């Protein structure tokens, strides 16, 4: 298993002011899986993503990712883990404004120490002609594709996506989802966090959260749909 979460809890604060963001999480994700984590705002889905990506630490339980128990890892090991194992795609892209599109992609390779060719990765996301543009010269969809390309350039096995279509229109969002689906097909584990139930229709599995607990985990209701059939 690429991702293994066992009895995981995450609490913020102490005493009467303590807030439980995750509770009793059991989750297994393997290579090639496209998993959508679904839930309303405040359900704990982003916290789950952050715990898997080692941006946050679990209060209890076991989180083993790619064979590494990140609940016991040191600070230095967590940095290495993020560099070599996971890669993030954010809702608001978080591209480096001082780097061109191609350079942002190369940054992913540089950070992970991978040998990915930025031009090739850019071409794979359909931005071969936008390589020398700076982020502020790109549309929102183009920026998100650059963000995906940056994540791909790391060649890390796990793709963690936090509302990747949240700032995009439907058509652009669909293009982004197709790109992510391709990555799962290529053998990566793709974890997409969203509140958009429609997106969950294209997933291999849908993990639904409510109040920090997994309330369902299985294939989408009504079966897996093609991206072209999605509407929102």
């Amino acid at each position, binding site marked *: 298993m690429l991702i293994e979460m066992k009895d995981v809890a995450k609490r913020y604060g102490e005493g009467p002011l303590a807030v439980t963001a995750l509770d009793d999480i059991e989750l297994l994700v393997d290579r090639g899986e496209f998993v959508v984590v679904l839930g309303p705002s405040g359900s704990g889905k*982003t*916290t789950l993503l*952050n715990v898997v*990506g080692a*941006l*946050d630490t679990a209060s209890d339980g076991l989180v083993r990712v790619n064979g590494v128990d990140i609940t016991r890892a040191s600070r*230095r090991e967590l*940095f*290495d*883990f*993020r*560099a*070599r194992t996971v*890669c*993030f795609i*954010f*809702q*608001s892209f*978080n591209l*480096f*404004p*001082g*780097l*061109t599109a*191609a*350079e*942002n992609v*190369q*940054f*992913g390779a*540089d*950070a*992970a120490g991978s040998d990915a060719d930025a031009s090739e990765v850019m071409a794979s996301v359909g931005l071969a002609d936008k*390589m*020398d*543009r*700076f*982020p*502020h*010269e790109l549309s929102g969809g183009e920026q998100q594709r650059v963000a995906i390309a940056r994540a791909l350039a*790391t060649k890390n096995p796990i793709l963690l996506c*936090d509302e990747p279509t949240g700032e995009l229109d439907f058509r652009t969002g669909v293009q982004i989802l197709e790109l992510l689906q391709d990555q799962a097909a290529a053998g990566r584990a793709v974890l997409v966090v969203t509140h958009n139930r429609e997106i969950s229709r294209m997933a291999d599995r849908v993990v639904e959260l409510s109040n920090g607990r997994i309330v369902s985990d299985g294939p989408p209701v009504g079966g897996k749909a093609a991206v072209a059939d999605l509407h929102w």
Partner: protein
Amino acid sequence: MKTSRLLLKWSWRDLRAHWPKVTAIAIVIAIGTGGYAGLTSTTEWRTVSYDASYAELAMYDLRIDTASGSTVDQGTLQAVVASFPAAASVAASEERLVAPTQVDASTDAQTVLVRGAIVGSDFSQGGPHVNSYHAFSGRLLNEADSGAPAVMLERTFATFYDIAPTGTIEVSGGRSVDFVGQATTPEYFTVAPEGEMFMSEATFAGLFTTLATAQELAALPGQVNNLVLTLVPGADRDAVKTELEAALAEQPFGSTVFTRDDNLSYTALTTDVDQDQAMFNALAFLLIGGAVGAAFNLIHRLAEQQRREIGVGMALGVSPRLLAIRPLLVSAQIAVLGVLFGVMFGVFIGNAMATVFTSLIPLPTWETAFPVAVFMRVAAIGFFIPFLASAIPVWRAVRVAPIEAIKPMHLTAVGLRGGKARRVRNTFSVLPFRNLRRARRRTALTVLGIAASLTVLMGFLGIMDSVFEAVDTAERESVGSAPDRVAVSLDTFYPVTAPQVVAVQAAESVDVVEPTLRVGGSVASAATEFEVFIELADMRNGMWSPTVSSGELTEQAGVLLADKAATDLNLSVGDTVTLRHPLRDGLSYRFVESRLPVLGTHPSPLRSIVYMDLGQAGMLNMTGITNALNVLPETGSATAQVQQELFPLGAVTSVQSVTAVTDAVRDAFDQILGVLRVMIVAILFLALLIAFNTAAINLEARAREHATMFAFGVKVRKALRLASTESLVLGIAATLVGLAGGFAMVWWMTQRLLTETLPDFGLLVVVNPQTVAIVAAMGILVVAAAPLLTVRRMRRMDVPGTLRLVE
């Protein structure tokens, strides 16, 4: 009302969130305003203190000196003053005897043998009533001490040599006298004996005593040579002087009437206070300019961070005026803090400067109260700057369409344009440079903000370098090829074969004696005229000769001018200068003018030194006559031994190392440099604050990028390296600008301002490598290292929270 309460609450939260930066910016403003107040107010309190002190000790309005070296019977001068037509205008008058002497205040620990003057005054009936005394330690003399071997030591001399309040010293002729205290009198508030070159408390001792004692010590019983008088209020000083001169002209003895404005010590304090102030003002303007520039940049950037929130407010229909309140409230908080800290810093600087002045100039009264009026003026500037600094970004935010203001900061970057970019090998290596390029205006403002403080720092240090280099040059020139040379002054002119000269040669510790002549005079050209000291020595074969920086010494009659003198006179080698010099005429001397070629120039920064070959003494009708000797001690004999041996000789008034003059000059500069040292500490602190604030604001501006890096596994160390590289580039640029600005400042101060305030001192633009190193260290190393101060915040960064921030 509700809205304003909300805004107040909000801005209070802003203040709490940014308190280290707000405090640091306030301190930057405080250093600028407080420093400005401290520096620019010195004239006010120095003038008040001087006036009060001169009034308290009743400095004379007029002084009568009998002809040089002559005395008259006690009562003679009083009789003239009592009977001349304007006698009713005289409030008080007292006869004195002022006699040159040598003072031996040596102890087991140190040899103190200096020139000096015995000032004998009338202490009867609670006197003296003109030019009275103030004791700092020990006691004042009184009527009972009349005729006793008791004196009071001049305070600054005693302080300089750390002499006890009471004790015993020796004066010329090997006479022992007790000193009963340390005191001052108006002519000695600063030590500047008339007719002497660069004398200071290090080289000249004033001994104050009763008239009878002075007469006894000088072996001039019943004689006086000096009368000082004060005038009744409203009296016309110049008219009284004219009447007095007329009355004295009828007397059978020569005399001269002086006003207090002719007294070097008086003018050194009262005139130079304005000249000092010109320099302090220039430094103050630079200091406040640097601080204001830096504060402006920092506040500007702080306010710029609220740009998006202003855009959101505009989108929600809030009026721009209301939206401007919040950032302006932060400015108000900075302004209030800045003024509060400024008062504290102003008091600190004022006290530091007062300490410097009160230790250098012992006045009976010092009024160093905090300069409220000056500070109020400058506080208004300090209060206004934060508002101006935040008003500009706020104004820029409210005048654009809300959607433009809402745009995330990083998307509003217009400094970068896509194109055919060169492929980079590693994105980490280009990121810092791109970040600077994409916000060029902000980068430029930051560079200028840091550069402003570096300019001031280098300016202050460079001025000290220039002054010390000039003093060192003067010292090197004095020492020349004869470092052991001792300068011996005689009390008057003697034939070179006179017993007084032979006695010097006969001293056991003396090897070689060379007679020289030192006389006062002036030089003039079509450009200007100024007073000089003319030194005639054997320039070709003597034990010492000055360095010739241009031209050459030949047997031809002519003068060797200081480089500075030649520049001021607008003369070159070969041009003709008008030299006004004494000419011996029987037993007296008169001044005549001679037109002489400029044979060359010498590099001494002391403009007033003119050298001539002793072979030209005939021009002064002084062939074979001397009043000063160059002496080389016997091998193994130290200057102190020569001093001890020559001290008892009656004709010898001083025996000093040739560096005594430069020591005196160095001492004179201590007053100004002491103030500069205080300011340099403040500027170093200012530069550190600016560096820290720049780093802190940069960290906030880059928080999202850092969070993204951390999400990609980039270590804090590497992110810090990137931040440091960015700061390093800023630091290098700021250092280059600061060095250029500082060099320009040093040039302006030394070549423009100080040429007016210190015309007799030639300063070159000198910036030592150490100064460049200090400025570079501040600008490059400290600025580059400043991000390290943010390492804790970086480590504690809430990465998920920062990444989710919707800018």
